[in-house]
């Protein structure tokens, strides 16, 4: 990552880098929080994943691979990962599809900048309200006696209520897309807003079609936004168990849900092993996304 940042830049800033004590002092409080509440817990979980459980909620301080072996040999766990991964892909795809075009609409189609900002805020307001409540609010719509079923019955499209709307995988994906599209819209909007409108005009003058402009200019220049949004969506879905539990009605399980149940029955070591693998999987996905763009340079420039 550092290599791509450009060697000339590094060389010119190197001398100042070593003497910037103020920078360190200013960032110290952040580090003081992150070490005990991010680094230490993760290390703690990793350590706990290698100890034995005495089966009664206690742990035996002896090294073992058993917790991992149990996970990798269990067909059930692999299925769980597959199910969670599938949800992540669906949520990612739909939130990207909707988020990209919403951002595109706001940046390139709404001509009044004040109106564009207002509409953008309209999209972001629900982000600052409770996710749980927003999820529950699908019940009166999607339920067997919900609005959508009543409407479809009224019109005569169906003759009995669709059970697949609520408490199903469909409901889970709907809830994810509902919650997470905003994580796509905001960074993509930011990237698109930075595109110099003259570039687009130049392309148009040179004879590019509107489709070409989106494909060859807007999309490549929104990559940072797309990457950031993807990181949020993927990591949130992979780490979620609440939406799956409520919206699937217990029909689907998730990786986190399974280890939460382990915690519930005090099986800390196996929960920890499961948590480590999950964190590793999420990190790999994030690193894969980060490889496509240099996010830090984009953010701090």
């Amino acid at each position, binding site marked *: 990552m550092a290599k791509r940042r450009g060697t000339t830049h590094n060389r010119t800033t190197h001398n100042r880098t070593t003497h910037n004590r103020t920078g360190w002092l200013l960032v110290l409080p952040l580090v003081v929080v992150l070490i005990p509440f*991010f680094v230490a817990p993760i290390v703690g979980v990793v350590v706990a994943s290698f100890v034995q459980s005495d089966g009664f909620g206690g742990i035996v301080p002896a090294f073992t691979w058993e917790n991992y072996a149990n996970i990798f040999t269990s067909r059930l766990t692999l299925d769980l990962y597959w199910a969670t991964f599938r949800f992540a892909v669906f949520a990612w795809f739909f939130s990207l599809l909707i988020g990209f075009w919403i951002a595109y609409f706001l940046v390139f189609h709404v001509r009044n900048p004040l109106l564009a900002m207002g509409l953008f805020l309209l999209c972001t307001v*629900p982000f600052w309200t409770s996710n749980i409540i927003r999820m529950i609010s699908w019940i009166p719509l999607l339920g067997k006696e919900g609005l959508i079923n009543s409407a479809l019955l009224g019109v005569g499209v169906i003759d009995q209520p669709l059970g697949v709307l609520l408490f199903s995988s469909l409901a889970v994906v709907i809830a994810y897309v509902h919650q997470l599209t905003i994580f796509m819209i905001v960074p993509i909007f930011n990237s698109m807003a930075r595109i110099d409108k003259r570039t687009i005009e130049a392309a148009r003058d040179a004879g590019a079609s509107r489709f070409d402009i989106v494909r060859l200019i807007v999309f490549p220049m929104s990559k940072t936004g797309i990457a950031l949004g993807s990181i949020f969506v993927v990591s949130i879905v992979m780490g979620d168990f609440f939406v799956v539990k409520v919206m699937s009605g217990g029909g689907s399980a998730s990786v986190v849900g399974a280890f939460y149940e382990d915690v519930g029955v005090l099986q800390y070591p196996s929960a920890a092993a499961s948590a480590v693998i999950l964190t590793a999987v999420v990190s790999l996905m994030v690193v894969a996304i980060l490889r496509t763009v240099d996010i830090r340079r984009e953010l701090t420039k």
Partner: protein
Amino acid sequence: MSQTAVLPPARASAAPRARRRAPDRGGRPWTFYVLAALFVLYVLALYGPMICIYILSFQDVRGGLVFPMRGTSLHWFVDLFTQVRTGDVKGAFGRSIRLAAIVTVLTVIVSFMAGLAFRKRFVGDSVVFYLMIGSLVAPGLVLGLGVGLLCNLLGIEASWYGSALGAQLSWTLPFGVLVMFAVMSRFNAVWEEAARDLGASPWQTVVLVILPIIAPGLVAVALFGFTLSYDEFARTLLTAGSLNTLPLEIWSMTLNVTSPSLYALGTVTTIISFLIIGLSLGTIAWMQKRRARKTAR
């Protein structure tokens, strides 16, 4: 053609303007209408369900979880705060608000300092940056499990104002710093240099120049800090100890309460969220208006 021949100067000045206007003021391309429809649908899907539960929370005793509306009353709001069955909602409210207030103050201070720090490079800046990103994307429950395990190990009792506070900060701080990046990228370092050239001490530069200029951005950081903490669930679940915060209370309600009091709680907590959002956005707008007036004078 004959007209332009008669009035050559008019043509010369009008033609380029007309051409420049064409892409702006001309007819909207068909994609505009498609995307406008998508936008309207998106906003409807965003707000529609929420509005449904606000309406349904005002039913009377006969009310159920779905339409049609059965009567109108405040029954379920009273029920929410008086019934034992629905748990300690009042206490959870108080704790969540207090916790969010503490998180907000700490997030604003720490994010501001980190925002200043990240403008220049320092030893290990990349490490701190990636720690932050890691903390942001780490699965909340994994982190909560880790914090809980450490508390066990060190013999500290988990509490909402201790372990849960720390766990929430590990989530709100990276957010706050990211917002600060956006704020500082618009801050022109020239103003800071001007202050230094005029003899301001570093402390004076921060308090008298940087702070007033980026104040609206700090309000935005505060908004993130408050709402992210107020609605936080995954990181708090295993770290809050014996007393619930509001989202944890809602979670336990979704599992065993099947009456509109669940919706009533949704309405109440959303009203608080909207108050906070309105207050923050109002403050930002007020600050910018005041500044515009000052610079105009």
